[in-house]
C-alpha cells in the first residue's frame, strides 16, 4: 500500500521524526496564538518556503495534499462575505499554514520512523499490559489485512451485481463485517498456534 511519504527525498527526510513532530507541535501552538494578517502571512510564507525547498515535484505533491481543505476555504469565504467581515482571511491563512506544515512532516517522514515515535510515546502504557510488541503486531495486521478487505468488499459487491440489477450500496457491509469477525477468530488461532502474541 502507498503511504503519503514523498518519494522525492529532501533534506528534511534526514531529520529525526521525533524532532520534526516536536517542532510541529511547538509551531502549531505558536501559530494559533498569532493575530492579524501580517504575522500569519509571514508564517504561511515560511511554510511555503520550506515546501519550495523540496523542489518542484515535492511542492506540487504538497499542494495536492491540501485538496481536502478547498470546501472549507469556499465556505469560510462565502460566510465572511455574507457577514461583510474581513476576518475570514485570518482564518484561511491560519488553516492553510497549520495543515501545510503538518503535511510537510508527514511527507518527509517514513511510516516506520513515525510508528517508532508513537511506540516510544506509548511506552508508559507497557505497565498496563500494552506492550510495544503487541502494538507493532496490531499495526502489521491492519496493513496486511486492508488490501484483503478491500478485495473482499469488491468481490461481495460483484456477486451482488451478478444477482441483481440494483447497486449493492450498504448491502456489502453485513457480509464484510461477518468476514472480518471470522478472520479475526482464525488469525487469533493462528497466532496462538505459533506461540501467542504476548
Amino acid at each position, binding site marked *: 500500500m502507498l*503511504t*503519503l*511519504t514523498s518519494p522525492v527525498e529532501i533534506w528534511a527526510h534526514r531529520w529525526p521524526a521525533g524532532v520534526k513532530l516536536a517542532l510541529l507541535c511547538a509551531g*502549531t501552538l505558536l501559530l*494559533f*496564538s498569532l*493575530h492579524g494578517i501580517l504575522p500569519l502571512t509571514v508564517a504561511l510564507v515560511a511554510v511555503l518556503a520550506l515546501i519550495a525547498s523540496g523542489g518542484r515535484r515535492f511542492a506540487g505533491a504538497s499542494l495536492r*495534499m*491540501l*485538496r*481536502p*481543505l478547498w470546501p*472549507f476555504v469556499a465556505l469560510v469565504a462565502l*460566510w465572511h462575505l455574507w457577514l461583510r467581515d474581513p*476576518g*475570514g482571511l*485570518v*482564518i484561511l491563512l491560519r*488553516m492553510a499554514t*497549520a*495543515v501545510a*506544515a*503538518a*503535511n510537510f*512532516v*508527514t*511527507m518527509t*517522514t517514513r*511510516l516506520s520512523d*513515525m*510508528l517508532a515515535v*508513537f511506540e516510544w510515546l506509548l511506552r508508559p502504557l507497557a505497565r498496563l499490559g500494552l506492550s510495544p510488541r503487541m502494538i507493532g*503486531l*496490531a*499495526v502489521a*495486521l*491492519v*496493513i496486511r*489485512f*486492508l488490501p*484483503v478487505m478491500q478485495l473482499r*468488499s469488491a468481490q461481495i459487491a460483484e456477486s451482488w451485481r451478478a444477482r441483481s440489477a440494483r447497486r449493492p450500496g450498504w448491502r456489502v*457491509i*453485513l457480509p*464484510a*463485517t*461477518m468476514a*472480518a*469477525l*471470522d478472520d*479475526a*477468530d482464525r*488469525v*487469533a*488461532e493462528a*497466532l*496462538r498456534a505459533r506461540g*501467542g*502474541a*504476548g
Partner: protein
Amino acid sequence: MEKSLTHIALFSALIAALGLMPSMMLATGVPISGQSLGIMLCGTVLGAKRGGLAALLFIALVAAGLPLLAGGVGGLGMFFGPRGGFLIGFPVAAFVAGLVVQNLRARVGIAAFAGAVLGGIVVLYAIGVPVMAAHLSEESLAKMFADLPAYRELPLPVALCALFLPGDIIKAVIAAAVTATVARMRPASLLSRA
C-alpha cells in the same frame, strides 16, 4: 489475548476499507462514506474497550501517514484541519457506542441503535463541532475556549453538521441492523454482549 488483538486490528482495517469504498449516494444526493459507520460498528460489535482501541489504532495509522480516510487522504495535516476534531472523536465515539450496548438492557438491535446514535452522532459531534468552530474563528484558541457559547462562528459548523445528520442517522440504522444480525448469526462473536 490474541483474540482481542486480532479483533482490534481487523476492525481497524474494516473502518479503513469501509471509508475507501465508493461512497454510497443517498436519494438526496448527499454522499455518505462508510467511515463513521465503521466507527459505530467497532463500538456496537466489539464493545467499549476493544472498539475504542480499534478506532484509536485507525487514527494512529492515519496520523502516521497512511491515506486511510474517505477519499484516500490522511497524514498529520488532517488532524490540524477543520475536521480534526472528528478524527480525535472517533475513539471516544466507538467507546461510548460500546458502553451503551454493554449496559443497556434492551434487545441488541435497539441497544445498538441507541449506542450508534449516542456515540457516533451525539458524542462525535460534541467533540468535532467546537473544534471546527475554533478553526473557523479568528479569535485565538485560548480566548475562544474561555468564552465558548458566545462565539458567532458556531452557526456555520452546526449548519454543516445538520447537512450530514440524515446520512449519519441512516448509518446508525445500518449499524444497528448489522449488529442485530451478527447477534443472531454469530452470537459468540458479538463481543459487546459476550
